């Protein structure tokens, strides 16, 4: 009897969890098909679904441009993050090079909230002529996500058996060759997970993006969406459609890469 009860509790909890995590996105979808009058009802489903919000959201704002900027910036920034971090993690965890302080310093730098760097970066970007530019944001995001990449990549590299490296060394391979030909293929799932997470973090960033860009041509999606608030789009339906259009690339990436994502997060959390 108590077993059935336990089973019942588990299923009830599962349903509750499912509803909680699906509800906001589901409601976003629903509202994106609602007419302005229909929105006022506060019903879950649209009364008479309309498709008008979707094209309208792209018309009233530079939505396509925002999405384009975000996709481009986050892809390049993510690749750069991994390209910069991977050799450093390899050098500090496997080669026993200099800079034992580096992992500690990199990870501690993650503790400071982004607002701490905001004002200094504002002046730096201005001085470098990189303010209000997608290139500036790309470089910034690439460096900003290094600590997370460091954290994620560490466990993957530590798990590579030393014999592999020793065998490569016996064959006369130098550290660079060993790294590229031997290590990289072995840790590729971790690299992929880190890449996806770095891309998503760059895509999602808002604070620096909003302070360092001031034209539609350079704005990223979260910045663009935040401007819709009250200004050009008072319309809930259009706001929902715009938000969904912006989330779509990320969800697509997350769904394609979920296997690596979960593995990557799980590894990062454990050792």
């Amino acid at each position, binding site marked *: 009897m108590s077993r059935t009860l336990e089973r019942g509790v*588990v299923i009830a*909890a*599962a349903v509750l*969890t499912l509803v909680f*995590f*699906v509800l*906001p*996105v589901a*409601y*976003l979808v629903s509202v994106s098909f609602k007419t302005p009058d229909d*929105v006022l009802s*506060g019903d*879950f489903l649209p009364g008479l679904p309309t498709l008008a919000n979707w094209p309208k959201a792209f018309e009233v704002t530079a939505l396509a441009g925002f999405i384009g900027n975000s996709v481009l910036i986050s892809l390049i920034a993510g690749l750069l993050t991994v390209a*910069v*971090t991977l*050799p*450093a993690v*390899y*050098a500090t965890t496997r*080669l026993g*090079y*200099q800079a*034992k*302080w580096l*992992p*500690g310093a990199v*990870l*501690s*730098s993650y*503790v*400071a*909230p982004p*607002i701490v*760097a*905001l*004002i*200094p*970066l504002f*002046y730096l970007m201005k001085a470098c002529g990189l303010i209000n530019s997608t290139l500036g944001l790309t470089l910034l995001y690439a*460096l900003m996500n290094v600590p997370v990449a460091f954290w994620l990549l*560490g466990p993957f590299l*530590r798990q590579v058996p030393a014999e592999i490296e020793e065998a490569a060394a016996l064959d006369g391979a130098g550290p660079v060759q060993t790294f590229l030909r031997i290590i990289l293929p072995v840790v590729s799932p971790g690299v992929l997970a880190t890449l996806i997470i770095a891309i998503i973090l760059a*895509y*999602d960033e*808002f604070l620096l993006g909003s*302070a360092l860009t001031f034209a539609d041509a350079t704005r990223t999606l979260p910045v663009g*969406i*935040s401007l819709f608030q009250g200004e050009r789009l008072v319309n*809930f339906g259009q*706001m*929902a459609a715009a938000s969904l259009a912006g989330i779509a690339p*990320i969800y697509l990436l*997350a769904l394609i890469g*979920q296997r690596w994502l*979960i593995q990557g*997060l*799980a590894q990062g*959390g*454990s*050792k």
Partner: protein
Amino acid sequence: MAQDSSRSGALALRAGAIDGFSGGPGRFARLDLLGSLASGRWLWTAPVVAGLLVLSIYPTIFLVALALSNSRLGRPFQSFAGLNNLLKAILDPAFQAALTRSIAFALASTAVELVLGVAVAVLMTRLVKAGRFLMSLILLPLMTPPVMVAVAWKLILAPVGGLANGTLQKLGLIGEPISFFGSAAGAWSSVGLADAWQWTPFVAILAYAALLAYPKEIDEAAMLDGAGPWARFRLLMLPFLAPSLVSIALLKLVIGFKLFDLVFVLTYGGPGFETTTAAFHIWRLALEQFDAGRAAAETLLFALVVGLVTWPLTRWQHRLEVREA
């Protein structure tokens, strides 16, 4: 294997830096440095070191200089201000309140989401196949841009046209719509709800990963001895998870201090200044009032507070790590 989980190089924020410096005899370290310069070894880490310079070292130095000056955002370093900015920041009740809110939110959201996340993790271990599905699903909130998370919850909680008010009214539970963003408690609950939606999955996935190493035999033996599910969780599973939870809590605490986007979109610091956190306070001071000098002073104080609040947990995590090593 299992115990390793706490060793998360996660935040080896500890005194890693200091250990490194005090480590070897200076002379050898210098020789080693010259050797590595000659061999090109430094190239492996150079870009990351450059990143640290740009994002940590330079901002710290610049903030100190800025805090000591009278600076407008458009015209920095107009004159020397001494400790004026710092004193003003420390004595400003509005900033003190904002700091307190940041600390309270970081601690409270960590506590709540740790409990919820562990619950979801245990649930996923119970569901087996459906658990994998649930895991893929909760990955999505974690990946959603916080600005969009805020938009989604704003639509649900809106006084007019919001799902929450619509449903409550239809059920006859309330007559008039509730203005969730009109009171301090309501606004904070809204921010907390959106934050829990986004970050509970993070805790759940990490806790689930740690639970994969949990020895099932112990659980089964305890069950045969007549231990109920709650007793088994409290006496066996929770102690097993504890080291991992310290690491996860530290991460979530750090993330909690980064709160900005949700406040910006959901409440804009209101009603009044009720949800104005330190980050939001600094942001308005710098980008709406252009008082860069005072904002820099506040930024330094905020960074100090974040360091102080996370420090005990950092030490704790470090101790666990040392014990296992």
